[in-house]
């Protein structure tokens, strides 16, 4: 960890060297380690230390961006010079007005020393438990245990200086028998909260129950979606619809629907980068404080997330959802929550006369963006539900269904939420389990 003072020194050095009208500096310092296991042993065990600097310079309305992971004074000068040279060759951006001015930023504590100080031995010990329990039960364990600490600074020459450290630990496992598999994962800011024994039990129990699956005909079924599957629904709604850019480009179902009912009235979805029970980050990559944004409230379309660019187009304030410049994706919700309902999972299951229990989805992709029509498969624990009970394992199924329809066909929402971390975008999600009617399966696997 470099700490706020060292990172501030680096940012100030860049500001002192820059001759641009405005300058922005993003610093990301990462210490990460990951222990990967398969076939009941560790097979990849890695650690990484990296520090990245990204400089955005503004000359009039011309903008250049350059980045490097060399923080030496000479390299910082080179990076700044590269950004300047790019800006000089850039065309003016008529939409650009200014980098954001400083605003008060709330502190959110999501950094845990014990996670930052995790050792290979501690990770190996947890993995050892999973491997041992797997061997005892005659199944094969695979998975990964990651511990990461990240410091982020966003600063600009208008006086913005925002510093935020975060840690997270993520342990996930697939347990496999000859004919079935089970999945479990757990994410927390504090690595000490990871309970390898509990994860082993959950995944092994499922793997054993998943043996010798039967083939079920595709068709429309009521589904019990575990939290692992529900998080995928939020991810794709986010990609397809919850960004102001998607609305401005007429490719979001939210367009023209604000204030109208678009989902079941029990569905409330919001983004909250200030919530300490997520992997919170209280400001975005322009240094704008994150606002809690109500996306869907009791089934009614309420809002989308903005960065400075999309907000200026509509004459509103940024909600603090910018990604690092230059950002072609538009604003992005990184801390989404689907509010829980009031039905315990056991009661949700009991309410299903005939349906399918889905542990998680796999390889989901958008078939039609406006309908949020998604195809993908079930994986690592798919079971038939009969008369309110899980009766037998079934082979994985392909679905092609609208996630928007799914949230209109909600039968029940679980009464508790689970935290997830998504490695590609560094986003976290918090969701309950869901029971959904008329979920459309379109194929089977062998």
């Amino acid at each position, binding site marked *: 960890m470099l700490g706020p003072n060292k990172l501030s020194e680096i940012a100030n050095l860049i500001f002192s060297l820059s001759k641009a009208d405005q300058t922005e500096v993003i610093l990301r310092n990462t210490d990460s380690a990951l222990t990967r296991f398969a076939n009941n042993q560790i097979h990849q065990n890695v650690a990484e230390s990296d520090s990245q600097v990204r400089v955005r310079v503004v000359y009039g309305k011309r903008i250049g961006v350059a980045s490097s992971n060399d923080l030496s004074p000479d390299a910082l000068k080179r990076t700044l010079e590269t950004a300047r040279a790019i800006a000089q060759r850039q065309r003016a951006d008529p939409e650009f007005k200014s980098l954001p001015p400083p605003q008060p930023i709330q502190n959110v504590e999501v950094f845990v020393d014990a996670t930052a100080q995790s050792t290979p031995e501690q990770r190996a010990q947890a993995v050892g438990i999973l491997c041992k329990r797997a061997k005892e039960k005659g199944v094969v364990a695979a998975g990964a245990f990651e511990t990461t600490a990240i410091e982020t600074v966003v600063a600009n020459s208008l006086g913005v200086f925002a510093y935020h450290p975060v840690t997270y630990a993520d342990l996930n496992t697939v347990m496999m028998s000859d004919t079935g598999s089970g999945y479990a994962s757990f994410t927390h800011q504090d690595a000490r909260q990871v309970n390898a024994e509990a994860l082993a039990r959950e995944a092994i129990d499922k793997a054993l129950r998943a043996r010798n699956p039967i083939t079920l005909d595709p068709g429309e079924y009521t589904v019990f979606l575990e939290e692992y599957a529900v998080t995928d629904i939020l991810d794709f709604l986010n990609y397809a619809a919850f960004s102001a850019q998607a609305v401005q480009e007429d490719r979001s179902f939210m367009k023209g629907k604000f204030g109208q009912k678009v989902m079941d009235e029990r569905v409330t979805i919001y983004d909250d980068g200030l919530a300490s029970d997520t992997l919170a980050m209280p400001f975005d990559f322009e240094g704008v404080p994150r606002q809690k944004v109500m996306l869907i409230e009791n089934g009614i379309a309420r809002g989308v997330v903005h960065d400075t660019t999309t907000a200026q187009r509509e004459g509103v304030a940024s909600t603090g959802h910018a990604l690092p410049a230059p950002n072609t994706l538009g604003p992005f919700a990184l801390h989404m929550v689907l509010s829980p309902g009031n039905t315990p999972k056991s009661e949700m299951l009991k309410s299903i006369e005939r349906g399918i229990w889905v542990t998680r989805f796999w*390889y989901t992709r958008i078939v039609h963006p406006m309908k949020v029509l998604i195809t993908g498969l079930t994986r690592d624990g798919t079971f038939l539900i009969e008369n309110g009970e899980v009766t037998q394992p079934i082979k994985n199924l392909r679905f092609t269904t609208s996630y928007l329809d799914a949230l209109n066909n909600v039968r029940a929402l679980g009464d508790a939420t689970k935290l997830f971390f998504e490695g590609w975008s560094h986003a976290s999600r918090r969701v309950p389990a869901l029971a959904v009617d008329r979920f459309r399966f379109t194929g089977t696997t062998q």
Partner: protein
Amino acid sequence: MKDITARALNMAQIRGASYADIRVVTRLTQRIAVKNGKVEALQQDETQGFGVRVIVNGAWGFASSSRLESKEVERVVTQALAIAKASALTKIKDVNIGAPIASKGTYETPVKLDPFIVALDDKIGLLLKTDEELRRVKGIKVTRGEMAFVRESKEFASTEDALVRQEIIESGCGISALATDLKTGEVQVRSYPNAGGRNQVTRGYEFILDQKLAENAGRVAEDAVALLTADQCPSYDAMTIILDGSQLALQVHESCGHPIELDRVLGTEAAFAGTSFLTPDKLNNFRYGADIVNITADATIAGGLGTFGFDDEGVPAQKTDIVRNGMFVGYLTSRETAQQLGLGQSNGTMRADGWNRLPIIRMTGVNLLPGTWRVDDLIADTTDGIWMETNRSWSIDDKRLNFQFGTEMAWEIKGGKKTRMFKNATYTGITPQFWNSCDAICNVDHWVVWGTPNCGKGQPPQIAHTGHGASPARFRNVRVGVVK
């Protein structure tokens, strides 16, 4: 540099490593993105660092850092050794990487026009001109164009006396037009030369010029608008389809390239990327496709996005048969997995996504070899079928058996002619059944090496750049359409 790498390797050996290697990598990336007549992104990124991989007590350890300084090298080597010792706590068998690899040499991507020397003004000018052509077509909502260039310099050294230096250069570009109709809720996109933003190869700026972006822009935009009112592609339980080369390249990537990765087969990707239906008992003993289906893994093919001189274990680039006359005959291997299956030497497919990632088995250039047909003859020979082109969505199960793809555009074929444009076309199938239904592959005149610059795998996540040669091909009795 040599002093630092030698010191790292000596230190690792002295402190108990039975094997160690070090990669020092610098990667320069330039990206230009244009949208709706405006340069939306113009950036240059440089990342450098080193990664040390060791075997201690029969187990692997890996550590990396961006700070290439003596003290940091010492810290990273110490960390890699400690990690390997921790790995050994759950060890079942010692790692065996087979006979030593003592490669020595250099490799540089041959380029005619170094993309990092070509003026930014020229690149921006070409993209803006192309964007203007796209926007000339009425009804287009969003236009996009992009270029990406990569120069990766890397040095690999090992305690087996290997010393390899490489410089890989990549160039990529693409354009797209998005048309929407709020009344019908229709959103349609057309891309050129490939979906996903761009096509990419290991060539210089000459590749960009060859693509003739501006000349193709009008057609691309007109297609997008036409798709808004095109007929919905009907659903069929069994239909003849012809896939264009770019869609087939992705089909090869997903349904052949991934299941032949031997790490998946042996279970080490089970929790994330998945496993494979091509289990070891099927090697040399399984009909993957029809007789006319021949697939190679080729890291030597000119311009391929998976082309290099040596992999990240120092193994020389190779060409390997994967499917020969329809029979499954080869895997992509690493030094360790080749030993696990008794296959002798690795065929050189271990690649890392930069200095901070461990090499894992990745596709090189996985190519469907050309057949004998001309495209026009193939269409003329098809009485009732659907032509599908340019990928729009892709999904496949964790064993790489059940797939479903969607394409940006499709055409009905009746009586040997393209008759009607279709939108929202999808097809689905089971991998070996699908490849066994292939009855015609177009010839080398239609064969293009496509690039996939976004192949995700591994934990922590790694993005690989892979190449796939393909020409249009015909498949019988394919299920088409699940969208009602």
